């Protein structure tokens, strides 16, 4: 919990090079590893590298915040027990759906404690999620107004809409969630020609020429030999990892990996070990140990070791330490699975993801995975890499054999988006968007920091988590923002550690400066009002710092 001795080094991008050495010893025991030797200002030869990884910042909140957070949870839990008691004796009406009479003597479908959290905590703030929208998920959208007559147990749509709410929640990084008729012309044509379904799997009669066209384009875009596309991003992980590793294999997984990676790892039957988030010492220790002592009990050598990491972590906004991981992977002959769900399109000077960001040859990464949901405004995922890898997946991927192939209009949307980013459509629009996104996210993040919020993650990440900590503020924050016509995503336990509830902003290239300024202004006011400006780095000489940061980012 207490990391006060080092927090001063983790926020400012400028003043940290002096104390970087002291920290190396600390990084092992903390959950969040903040920095290592590679860093913007630290290296002398930084100029020769295409781009050096900016550091991830994970500022620690003051102690009292943690205490208050626990107290907050304590109070709602106590109240929960109290209300459960009232429900049990019939003083409070229970709104929950009940088991039907005929099956009351069955073994209960849910354990009672499973539902405690949902009934007593989630129900209080339930209106902040699943808000229905009725327009394009672009930079602004229309939220359908809903009210609850029974304290969030059920919702009723009033039929009214809150129009032009600024969308800070969708993963529309490059603004390809758009409905401009001209842009969508090809998509509409495909729909007219093909319809929307496929009604067969890739291995049977669901392998269309446009699927193959898409796969060639993805491979070309990423600069690798071959690629394969799948209909769902989540399933790309969960249905292909089992084809790559199995029994007697070891998976080393970052502790903050997405559920789909975890599910895929679990389904594969391989042994899974977890290393601390972005912590290279932890990873190296596990690698060394694994190779030296082999499999548990039998001590046979592992067949293969697969390191699973994400490009950008969606809840923390942190960036993978790719060069270090590649070095480790080479040293220990492990394989690397890189999930670029949030980074493809959004990171790198021309939007080709973290490999480009670090100036690394994409062929050095064994398995490049990514989704089309975010930057490309479509749905699905891909796996790319060497031809042998993709050929193997074509014949052994669960998805290729058992799941319906991708919908043709969706395929066309991805083709259109990638062509635009690559500039083969003859415009510079794609590159303009990549640059705009990079500008927007730097602006947004640095302004937030300047205002005194605790913001997690890397300066080059389009995901900007703003820490709220206290459970009571989560709901208040989201509702107040919606009132100001800004749609934000808030996340709390169990998606985050219990003390680290947060709001998450996804910056888009489609956001105009006016929109961002409006959001920032609202945040500034609201931050003062509900007191969530927890950062203790509020620079007194703010103008100066801001300018310098800006200068650095432009370089």
């Amino acid at each position, binding site marked *: 919990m207490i990391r006060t001795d080092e927090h001063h080094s983790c926020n400012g991008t400028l003043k940290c090079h002096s104390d970087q050495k002291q920290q190396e010893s600390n990084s092992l025991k903390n959950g969040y590893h903040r920095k290592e030797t590679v860093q913007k200002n630290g290296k002398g030869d930084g100029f020769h590298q295409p781009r050096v990884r900016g550091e991830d910042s994970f500022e620690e909140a003051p102690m009292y915040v943690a205490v208050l957070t626990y107290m907050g949870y304590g109070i709602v839990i106590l109240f929960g027990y109290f209300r459960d008691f009232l429900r049990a004796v019939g003083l409070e009406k229970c709104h929950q*759906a009940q088991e*039907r009479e005929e099956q009351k*003597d069955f*073994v*209960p479908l849910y354990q009672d404690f499973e539902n405690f959290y949902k009934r007593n905590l989630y129900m209080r703030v339930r209106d902040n999620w*699943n*808000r229905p929208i009725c*327009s394009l*998920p*672009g930079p602004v959208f229309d939220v*359908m107004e809903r009210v609850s007559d029974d304290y969030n147990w059920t919702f009723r749509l009033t039929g009214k809409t809150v129009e032009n709410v600024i*969308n800070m929640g*969708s993963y529309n990084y490059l603004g390809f*969630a758009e409905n401009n008729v001209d842009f969508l012309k090809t*998509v*509409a044509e495909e*729909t*007219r020609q*093909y*319809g*929307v*379904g496929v*009604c067969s799997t890739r*291995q049977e*009669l*669901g*392998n*269309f*020429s446009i699927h193959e066209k898409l796969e060639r384009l993805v491979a070309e875009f990423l600069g690798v030999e071959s690629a394969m596309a799948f209909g769902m*991003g*989540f*399933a790309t992980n*969960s*249905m292909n990892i089992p084809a*790559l590793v199995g029994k007697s294999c070891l998976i080393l997984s970052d502790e903050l990996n*997405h*559920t789909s990676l975890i599910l895929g790892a679990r*389904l594969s039957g391989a042994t899974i070990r977890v290393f601390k988030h972005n912590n290279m010492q932890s990873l190296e220790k596990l690698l060394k140990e694994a190779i*030296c*002592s082999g499999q548990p009990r039998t001590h046979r050598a592992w067949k293969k070791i697969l390191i699973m990491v994400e490009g950008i972590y969606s809840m923390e906004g942190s960036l993978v330490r790719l060069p270090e991981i590649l070095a480790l992977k080479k040293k*220990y*002959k*492990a*394989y690397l699975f890189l999930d670029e769900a949030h980074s493809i399109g959004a990171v790198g000077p021309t939007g080709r993801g973290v490999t480009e960001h670090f100036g690394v040859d994409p062929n050095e990464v064994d398995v490049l995975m990514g989704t089309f949901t975010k930057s490309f*405004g*479509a*749905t699905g995922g891909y796996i790319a890499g060497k031809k*042998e*890898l993709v050929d*193997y997946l*074509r*014949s*052994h991927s*669960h998805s290729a*054999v*058992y799941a*319906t192939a991708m919908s*043709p*209009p*969706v395929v066309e949307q991805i083709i259109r988006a990638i062509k635009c980013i690559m500039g083969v459509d003859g415009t510079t629009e794609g590159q303009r968007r990549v640059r705009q996104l990079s500008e927007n996210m730097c602006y947004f993040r640095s302004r937030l920091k300047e205002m005194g919020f605790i913001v997690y993650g890397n300066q080059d990440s389009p995901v900007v988590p703003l820490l709220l900590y206290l459970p009571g503020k989560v709901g208040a924050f989201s509702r107040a923002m919606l009132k100001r016509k800004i749609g934000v995503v808030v996340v709390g336990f169990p998606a985050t550690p219990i003390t680290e509830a947060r709001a998450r902003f996804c910056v888009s290239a489609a956001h105009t400066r006016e929109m961002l300024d409006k959001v920032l202004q609202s945040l500034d006011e609201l931050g003062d009002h509900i007191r969530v400006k927890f950062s203790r780095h509020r620079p007194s000489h703010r103008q100066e710092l801001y300018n310098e940061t800006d200068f650095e980012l432009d370089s």
Partner: protein
Amino acid sequence: MAAGQQWVLVEMVQAFYEAPAYHLILEGILILWIIRLLFSKTYKLQERSDLTEKEKEELIEEWQPEPLVPLVSKDHPSLSYDVVTGPPSHRIIVNGKECINFASFNFLGLLDSERVKLKALSSLKKYGVGTCGPRGFYGTFDVHLELEERLAKFMRTEEAIIYSYGFATIASAIPAYSKRGDIVFVDEAACFSIQKGLQASRSFVKYFKHNDMEDLERLLKEQEIEDQKNPRKARVIRRFIVVEGLYINAADICPLPELVKLKYKYKVRIFLEESMSFGVLGEHGRGVTEHFGVNIDDIDLISANMENALASIGGFCCGRSFVIDHQRLSGQGYCFSASLPPMLASAAIEALNIMEEDPGIFRVLQDKCKHMHKALQGTPGLKTVGEPLTPALHLQLENSTGSRTNDLKLLRAIVDYSLDRQIALTLARYLDKEERFLPPPSIRVVVTVEQTQEEMEKAAQCIREAAVKILK
């Protein structure tokens, strides 16, 4: 209060002086022991390797991993895909040849429906393609809510929930309810997504013989005896039967009325996967419950994909709110995946409209299925697997050559022969090593409402010719 505390302190100090020496020594040792326990390093098995750094380095140097993936030979049967150019509708172009489609699960022909396409287009105009977020984070669109409501209404259940991928539907639904320690009774012929769902749930899985209710009852009885031994434990073990309405691998219908009887007798919940039977069986296409006239409330969860009869993408689960609502926080494929593109949801809504407006379509399909089933009888060397009502039949070799690869080659030759004669068929594909009970190799023959009598006769004739020629 203060005075009282002081007095206690004084008393403690006095007690300390009065205590015998051995007592103090003992306590002192105990305190030291506790401190030691607190600060000593925790014992870890893996760290106890007595290797020196150099030895470790040598080991690391020595270790050679297997290649990430084994090399796939170029002529691997599942590597060369058939390429379809143009829409997979009634007439399909496979590898450059125009054929009549007997392979896509487009049972009701809704894939080519102009109405569906127009609806999808108008949705595209309004919403674009992607949703750019999961349902929780502004990925819930009005069309999703409408589709859920419509599906629930169509199936006459309280609630429905949609997933963005057919495979992920039942594979996410099972682990949302069945956890470690629970017991699931599953039919041996259950499809791959059920198998993956079971694996993800980490429950205890008991397979019963395909459609064999006696075998199921035997297992249930065994469990009952087991329960009597430990009634306390039995009270928290959830039990489920997972079956398919119409088995994709076996092409036959589950004996639902018997299953419901067993359900109440042994207090087991039923999960029913209806991807093949939804929009196919029953007077109104509601699936196997309507086919048997079983009260749909007796089934705890029905799951189906929208990729076959509805000719869109995605899947849904429906049932009572008490059951279904739980998935909105616990269904992994629901919570952690981007939602279904609105245009695909709109297409599914329009397909539902067509199904509701014209229930005669199911009758037509069922008649055609029966016709095809009859026409394929007596094909020399091939046996028709499946019930007359199934729209996706399997043709298996009567006499296996003894090797799966050779069997597949023979069947592939029949498929190729038919492709040359404008009949598009496909082999049923499986992952040989992953399937729990690998079905025998087969050709899939799919019936749709668009096929005419003559076309079906032609297909059956063509298959017969091929069989005679190839399987002599």
